[in-house]
């Protein structure tokens, strides 16, 4: 049979039945969005008013007031320290947690579930909630902030590192097993080198995230620049709030530059 014997010029990606199913899915999706919009209590007058309010607020923020700049910069530095110290400790603690939570390194079922429990509980609670908890325990201040960020970061770093351990090339591990090396030496020689790139990438990324998270810790009294921002807003000192926001913006951009630089140097 040659090609010209095939008198077929009809082709469709989907069968009619599949097409109907797809239309039905789109319709369902649209209905869900409509229902969601209808069931939340939006005060539309305020939404339409927002551009005017924005302009008003912006007008009050200009020009930014730099009289407290020294204090703001000092507290901003404190914020950087909160992020850096918390990231460093979180990285150290997440190493054994990742080891427990990775299926191919964990000693047994119980330790696997312990590792996963630590990861899930750390990750399912927001930094601000952790901060509220630790402000109650340690009192207001940067210690509460550091511990809060640390607790949230352990889950993040541990999970990504654990996944990296699970995805390693197992052949070198087999080769070192065959040489009669102990468990620990196999980890040091066959697993650690393979997860090193992920380790650095995840640590730098988390430091970057923590820098931004530590700017809001002050809202719940856990140290950092947020305290000054909160104070400025509460006293309607909009020019100073503007200075703080600008300072945070500059910090975040700097953090982005530093982490991009580190990533290029290390990876």
């Amino acid at each position, binding site marked *: 049979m040659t090609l010209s014997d095939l008198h077929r010029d009809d082709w469709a990606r989907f069968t009619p039945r599949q097409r109907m199913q797809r239309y039905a899915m789109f319709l369902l999706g649209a209905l869900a969005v409509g229902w969601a919009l209808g069931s939340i209590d939006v005060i539309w007058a305020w939404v339409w008013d927002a551009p005017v309010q924005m302009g008003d607020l912006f007008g009050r923020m200009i020009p930014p007031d730099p009289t407290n700049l020294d204090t703001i910069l000092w507290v901003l530095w404190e914020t950087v320290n909160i992020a850096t110290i918390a990231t460093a400790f979180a990285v150290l603690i997440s190493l054994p947690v990742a080891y427990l939570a990775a299926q191919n390194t964990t000693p047994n079922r119980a330790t696997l579930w312990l590792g996963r429990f630590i990861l899930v509980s750390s990750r399912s609670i927001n930094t601000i909630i952790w901060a509220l908890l630790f402000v109650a325990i340690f009192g207001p201040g940067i210690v509460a902030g550091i511990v809060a960020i640390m607790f949230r970061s352990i889950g993040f770093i541990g999970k990504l590192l654990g996944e990296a351990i699970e995805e390693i*090339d197992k*052949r*070198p591990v*087999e*080769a*070192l*097993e*065959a*040489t*009669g*090396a*102990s468990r*620990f*030496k*196999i980890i*040091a*020689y*066959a697993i650690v*080198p*393979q997860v*090193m*790139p992920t380790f650095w990438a995840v640590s730098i990324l988390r430091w970057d995230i923590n820098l931004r998270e530590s700017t809001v810790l002050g809202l719940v009294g856990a140290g950092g620049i947020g305290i000054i921002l909160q104070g400025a807003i509460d006293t309607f000192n909009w020019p100073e709030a503007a200075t703080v926001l600008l300072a945070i913006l500059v910090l975040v951009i700097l953090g982005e530059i530093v982490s991009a630089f580190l990533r290029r140097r290390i990876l």
Partner: protein
Amino acid sequence: MGPAGTGRVRNREIQMLKITELVKRYGSGDPVLKNLNLTIEGESVVSIIGSSGAGKSTLLRCINRLVEPSSGSIVLNGTELTKLRGRELRAARRKIGMVFQGFNLVDRLTVMENVQSGRLGYISTWAAVMRRYPKEDIRRAYELMERVGIAHYADKRADELSGGERQRVGVVRALMQKPEILLADEPTASLDPKTSEQIMGLLRDLAGELKLPVLINIHNVAEAKEYTDRIVGMRYGRIIFDDLPEKLDQDAMDKIYSGSPAADRAGTPGEMREAS
């Protein structure tokens, strides 16, 4: 004695590996190895040929217990390997070098670190982590690397090397263990024909220089004939040929590789599953 200068084996007894009635069964299926018997003595280079799924790889991995044998006995120089556990097993594994098809190097470590990883069973954890290798081990590493032509790569990362060079690193890593036997699982299957011949020649020469028995799984029958002293043909978990290379005629080849497997299955009626 070759330039590797390893006089340690000069006065030793003849090496011997004796496998008796070895059975390996994965799950509840047909065994992959069926009451297999094999003895290897002295510095001979033995190749194991057979189609994929014949059980060659499983046989090799049973010897160093990367695969757990179901029953039977494997004795290397007086030590029964199948019953060992934990520390004793690791001590026995040090005496068994292994070379892999995929080289199985740690890509991000240097050639020297990869080579020294063959000594991990001997040195302290602290020395291993800090890369403080004993002077004697470093000397031996340089000698062996010189012997196989990779000494100038010592500080290069393993993933910067070509396939043939990587396999040389794999061979040196195995020899660093001061093994009593060398196992090679398809050591040349990932290499081009020329490099493949070089590696086979190297394995044969090293076996002679170090007075080491070498057991090689191989697909390339021409290489098996040229570079080894004895050929073992496997089919469906049994050894159906075991003789000198020149005895491997067309008839024997047909039995090992060819067509209808009905004759082989006579021992296991009705069982159509092939081990892989």
